[in-house]
């Protein structure tokens, strides 16, 4: 591993975690697409800030961009409050307009400045190691690490300080308002943080892939746990894994690093979506199949119980008869009987089936339930 490898991975990891933290709340509050909107409109903030200051490296640009993010959120809220358009449409109206304005301003007035739309969409993480922080001539590492590190700490601090409030407003906004919290102040603070994070990550991974780092890890974590602290931790972990794996895959294939990070994040999501122990597709399918078998066995015991002690009991309790009466295919019936025998709900006796004590109990319990 060269120094550049380490530097890029460090930047990628810090960025991924910084994005995942506010992302958790975006996903839980159903505002994931707001990150997409903000990641586009901050460009206008940067452009306007640049016109004001005339320096692309001024920290004021971040302030301007963050303000534009908050403005985006307010504009969407304003548009929604007119009740003339729905929320999704409001987002879809606001951000393309502001983004268009930014693109036009750039191409018209800032053509010769290093602010091209290409870099905005794709980011330049590969350049991160060349942008270094020097203090008194000492090389302290890539600036990206410090910038995103500060943002990461800011996000962490916000979540720790307002953990209770965030939790309450996220899961029960009505109760939060009734208890006297100000959900809107918290909302706008969160949105400001999202904006700042987006602006910081913008240079590194580009505007579209910021969305991947904000949404994919929390969505993945959401499928793995029901507890908020665990979800936050898992999101950060998934973000880190995406960053490191994404980097090495990109190096191996000589491809876009940021793109590869997003792709890995997507693959991780798909894996969890399919194989999550509780909520994965596979687990759900298995649970359904189990329920189907259990239901069939219950049917069998109820059927036997109904006819127990009646004259036709002997005939009804034959396996062949099940096919006729319950409309079961022969091999299905055979498997149900085998499973029921395994469970010791029924026993085979002279070619017909008999309920055991526990089978009888199960059948009557099932009948009582329905």
């Amino acid at each position, binding site marked *: 591993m060269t120094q550049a490898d380490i530097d890029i991975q460090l930047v990628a990891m810090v960025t991924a975690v910084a994005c995942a933290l506010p992302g958790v709340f975006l*996903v839980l509050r*159903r*505002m*994931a*697409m707001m*990150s*997409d909107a903000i990641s*586009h409109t901050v460009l206008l903030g940067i452009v306007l800030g640049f016109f004001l200051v005339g320096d692309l490296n001024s920290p004021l640009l971040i302030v301007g961009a963050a303000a534009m993010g908050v403005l985006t959120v307010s504009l969407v809220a304003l*548009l929604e409050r*007119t009740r*003339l*358009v*729905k929320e*999704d*449409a409001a987002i*879809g*109206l606001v951000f*393309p*307009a502001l*983004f*268009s*304005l930014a*693109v*036009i301003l750039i*191409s*018209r*007035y800032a*053509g010769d400045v290093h602010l091209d739309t290409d870099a905005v*969409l*794709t980011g330049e993480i590969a350049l991160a190691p060349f942008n270094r922080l020097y203090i008194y001539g000492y090389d302290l590492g890539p600036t990206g690490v410090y910038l995103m590190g500060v943002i990461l700490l800011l996000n962490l601090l916000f979540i720790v300080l307002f953990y209770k409030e965030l939790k309450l407003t996220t899961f029960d906004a009505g109760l939060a308002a009734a208890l006297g919290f100000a959900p809107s102040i918290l909302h706008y603070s969160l949105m400001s943080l999202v904006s700042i994070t987006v602006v910081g990550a913008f240079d590194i991974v580009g505007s*579209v*892939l*910021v*969305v*991947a780092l*904000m*949404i*994919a890890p*929390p*969505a993945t974590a*959401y*499928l793995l746990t029901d507890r908020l602290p665990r979800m936050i931790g898992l999101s950060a972990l998934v973000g880190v894994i995406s960053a490191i794996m994404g980097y090495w895959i*990109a190096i191996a*294939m*000589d*491809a*876009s690093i*940021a*793109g*590869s*990070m*997003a*792709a890995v*994040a*997507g693959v991780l*999501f798909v894996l969890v*979506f399919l194989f999550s122990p509780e*909520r994965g*597709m596979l687990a*759900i399918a298995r649970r359904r199949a189990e329920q189907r078998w259990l239901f069939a066995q219950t049917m069998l015991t109820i059927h036997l119980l109904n006819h127990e002690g009646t004259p036709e009991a002997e005939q009804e309790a034959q396996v062949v008869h099940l096919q006729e009466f319950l409309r079961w295919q022969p091999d299905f019936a055979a498997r149900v009987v085998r499973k029921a025998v395994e469970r010791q709900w029924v026993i085979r006796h002279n070619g017909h089936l008999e309920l055991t004590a526990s089978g009888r109990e199960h059948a009557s319990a099932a009948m009582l339930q329905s």
Partner: protein
Amino acid sequence: MDIFQLLSDLFTNYTLRTVAMGSMVLGIVSGALGSFAVLRRQSLLGDAISHAALPGVVLAFLFTRSKEPVVLMVGAILAGWVGTIMMINIVKRSRIKEDSALGLILSVFFGIGLVLLTFTQRLPDASQAGLDKFLFGQAATFLIRDIYAMVFLAGVVLFLLGLFWKEFKLLSFDPEFGESQGFSMNKLDILLTTLLVVAIVIGLQAVGVVLMSAMVVAPAAAARQWTDRLSVMVILAALFGALAGVSGTLVSSTTEGLSTGPTIVLCISLIVFISLLLAPNRGLIWQALRRLRQKRTLYLDGVLADMYSLSRQHDNLEYAHRIEVLRTMNAGRGGVYRSLKTLEAKGLVRRADDRLWALTAEGLPVARRAFLLLHPHALDTPAEKAAQEKGSEA
């Protein structure tokens, strides 16, 4: 350049005409299909689809080594379609909500597209030039051949939209009822989404990934303000889309440094803004006027009720009251004189003297009704009971 020159250029200048035609087709199709997306609260689906199309474009190029728009469009359509189906399934089969699924598909597909894009850069025979067009859109480079491809696809989309009009209407407004009538809402959903994918891909080359979502949402959102009928809305949205396409092209052709895509988006945004303000009934200005009128009516009713309640204390119900008393009763909210003047014009009150006002014979029943609305218990008093009976006899 004056406007007539510009309009004549539109018909004579080959490049301008081609670009304008392309933008118009794009506006029509995305406006029409976008109407359904907006009504079904899928406005942001367009955003996701247009991003998800990128890997398809690049793969189509990598497989065929051709930059023919038709080839790339097919790739884009396939990828957009796969992305949409995945998104729908994520929402249906897990606890992930729609917004997260959209963001996920949008960004991950785009990331995969970027990875693939780096492969094309290493090919000896190719620069990315033609592919970039799909990222940012370059209406200015339209060739007449591209337009033919667009018109053909647009024709197919609009034809299918007309063919399944009734079914799509059901799907948008009452899918449960549609299902009960024996239509497979699932299949219709997939068909309509596919049409939307095609519509978006048509527009991608003109305005690019980011701005395409505006062309899906904005014309429909503007059209929605002017009508409550689906057919009118779809036609209006198509018109608005076409208008924005053509005017955006014209404006950007006159000024240096105005890219076509963003200009078209600003044009359609302006149309939305105007519609939100001015559309009859729904528009913000209309809403404000209606609220003002309601407020005035409330004021007038208040003054009438006050006059009636004063008159009840005199033998003569048409007794004239001093305006100062009415002002006091009105709790200083003001506007009493103006209200009285309005009522006088309506013939409900008359001016007995400089500062004295009385109810007229026509005004009396109106004032009584207003008074009783505010004081329902007054009906229990003998005087009002008598008046009520007298009124019902009459």
